[in-house]
């Protein structure tokens, strides 16, 4: 190896280390790019539908988004917040209810086994007592304020991050070609044409995925709302919106979204909770076997095990944001791996020594 090659290697390692230490900022940037892509897809549709120039289309789509968001906020947010607050208040009650149900069941079992004695179950009552929210609050008011201050600080950073993501999304959506060409400048010149094709494919895959997720989330939300209102569970709007939103995160999200309506239903009666569970299982299966396959493209199909693995890896690497963004990241990575690593490197990698060995063996056999 010559000195120049060593130099290149060291520069590569150093830049990778730098990127690794900046991974949070890069994740925020990726979020912005994903949002920008969604916006670009919308702009493209508007442009084709109305045959107008790009700036006008950008303005139009921003206007449409603003109107939709405003209507949604006006229609959904106030009841959602009220219901969500009620939901949060009811969770401890539901927990107590669950504990008492459990205790009753255990008592009856023990009565069946040991006759009338019901001793040895006092620990459960203690467990129930320690979860009371009031006592914890009263003991730690001091901690509470400190935590509140920390919460306000966290809220500030979250707001800043959201603003950053939105700004990046708008800026990238304003001139996507300039960013793509700038990125392509950093690729060796013999590979630029191919890299542009790969990037375009990534963009197509991402926008297809986003369209599919949008439709399936809407379906899941609607189905959950219909089912919950049929079952007569309260807080329908909050639960339906939650189910739709959490549907973006596969595996983990639907499980989480089942917990809330189940705990609400448990307050009414246990069988209702089981009915809610059944409803959500049916909705999830409908979504994953009927809606998603018919909406998503074939090439986008991610194996379920792969999805779960990607979620695990990205959560470990990037934290909660990684969990939310696991699917778009996986979609992008899939395209890049398929096109660059498999198609351009591994498929062409015909090992010369091996082939020579095979030829020699063939020579040995034929005479």
């Amino acid at each position: 190896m010559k000195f120049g090659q060593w130099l290149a290697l060291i520069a590569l390692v150093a830049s990778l280390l730098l990127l690794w230490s900046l991974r949070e900022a890069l994740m925020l940037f990726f979020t912005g790019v994903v949002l920008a892509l969604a916006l670009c897809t919308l702009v493209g549709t508007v442009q084709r539908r109305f045959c107008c120039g790009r700036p006008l289309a950008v303005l139009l789509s921003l206007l449409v988004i603003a109107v939709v968001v405003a209507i949604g906020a006006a229609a959904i947010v106030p009841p959602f917040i009220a219901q969500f607050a009620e939901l949060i208040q009811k969770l401890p009650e539901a927990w107590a209810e669950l504990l008492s149900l459990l205790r009753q069941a255990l008592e009856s079992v023990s009565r069946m086994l040991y006759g009338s004695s019901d001793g040895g179950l006092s620990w459960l009552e203690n467990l129930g007592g320690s979860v009371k929210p009031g006592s914890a609050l009263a003991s730690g008011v001091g901690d509470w304020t400190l935590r509140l201050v920390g919460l306000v600080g966290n809220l500030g950073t979250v707001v800043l991050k959201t603003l950053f993501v939105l700004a990046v999304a708008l800026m990238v959506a304003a001139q996507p070609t300039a960013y793509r060409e700038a990125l392509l400048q950093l690729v060796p010149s013999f590979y630029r044409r191919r890299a542009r094709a790969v990037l375009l494919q990534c963009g197509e895959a991402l926008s297809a995925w986003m369209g599919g997720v949008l439709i399936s989330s809407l379906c899941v939300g609607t189905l959950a709302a219909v089912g919950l209102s049929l079952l007569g569970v309260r807080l329908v709007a909050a639960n339906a919106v939650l189910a739709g939103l959490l549907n973006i995160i596969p595996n983990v999200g639907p499980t989480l979204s089942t917990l809330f309506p189940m705990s609400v239903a448990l307050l009414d009666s246990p069988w209702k909770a089981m009915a809610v569970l059944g409803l959500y299982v049916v909705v999830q299966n409908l979504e994953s076997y009927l809606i998603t396959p018919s909406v998503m493209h074939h090439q986008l199909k991610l194996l379920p095990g792969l999805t779960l693995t990607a979620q695990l890896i990205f959560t470990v690497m990037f934290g909660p944001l990684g969990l939310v963004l696991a699917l778009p990241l996986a979609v992008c990575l899939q395209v890049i791996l398929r096109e660059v690593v498999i198609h351009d490197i591994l498929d062409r990698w015909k090992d010369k020594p091996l082939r020579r060995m095979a030829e020699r063996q063939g020579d040995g056999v034929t005479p």
Partner: protein
Amino acid sequence: MSGRTLVGVLSLVVLGLLAWELRLVLLVLFGAVVLAVALDVPITLLRRLLPFSRPAALILELVVLAVVGGLITSLLLPEVLEQIQVLSNLIPQLPARLQTLISQVPQLHALEVKLVGGATWDRLQPLGGQLLGFAGGAANSTVQLLLIALLAVLFALDPRSHQRLLLAATPQFYRGRVQVLLSECREALGGWLAGMTLSAVVVFLATWAGLALLKVPLALLSALVCGLLTFVPTIGPTAATLLPMAVALLLAGPAKMLQVAVFRLVLQNAEAFVLTPVLLSRTVNLLPTVALMAQLCLGALLGLPGLLLALPLVVVLQVLCQEVLVHDVMDRWTTASGSQKR
């Protein structure tokens, strides 16, 4: 691998680690270079017009700067001092005012009660420690600023020999290229500084006029802060808007605050999307996200000084990347395709 290559690689790694350890010192050095370029721009202009030697031009410039600064301060200082005094009287009232505003909104009342109930002196003691640390940091940064100014004057006194020193540290075959690179960096940085100075002056004057028209008190001080913070794009103007907004809220009420906010928003966007691109279009062509991203990354790596110096750093880095990485490495990389396809 020969012994020579091994020694070269090892020394390179050690140098890289050393540079990483000394990154704050290097940042101070970079700040000095930026300031030196700022001094150098008028010097070059002066020497082109009049037959001065460099030290004489530098002294003349420093004298002019001192005189102009002294004049401005003697004109504006009494007013600014008065305004600062008013402001320091006002700042303690801000939380009380905010509290009354908050208590008018019924939903936030409970939160406010909790906040005030918890904010006893015991809780605030860590804050005192933080304040002490802040004072120490202020002294430290004053020393750093002085150092930057001294280094900048030294650099501006004799830029040629410093340039030669840097040139001597590169291999023979690359020296011509490095010379071109250095002059390009100098040009980009000078253009950026000149453009930003112009735009900061415009922002200062516009803010002053606007706030005076809106009859917001402390207009001069607010305008000064807004003008200075223009040098830190995206984050600076937003932070600078808080001062006149707080003043308007305290002395004139929420309606005035809204007016100030709208005015600053319009001005800031006009500056960011019309004025700066027009001024910088000839010399520096930065994509807006690159600037934002650079601020985030450098702020994460180097703290507040990195955030303040992010834009000049990114201007230089862009020139280097464009010339070295893209032009010298990536554009010429065509042979590998032949060897791969073979």
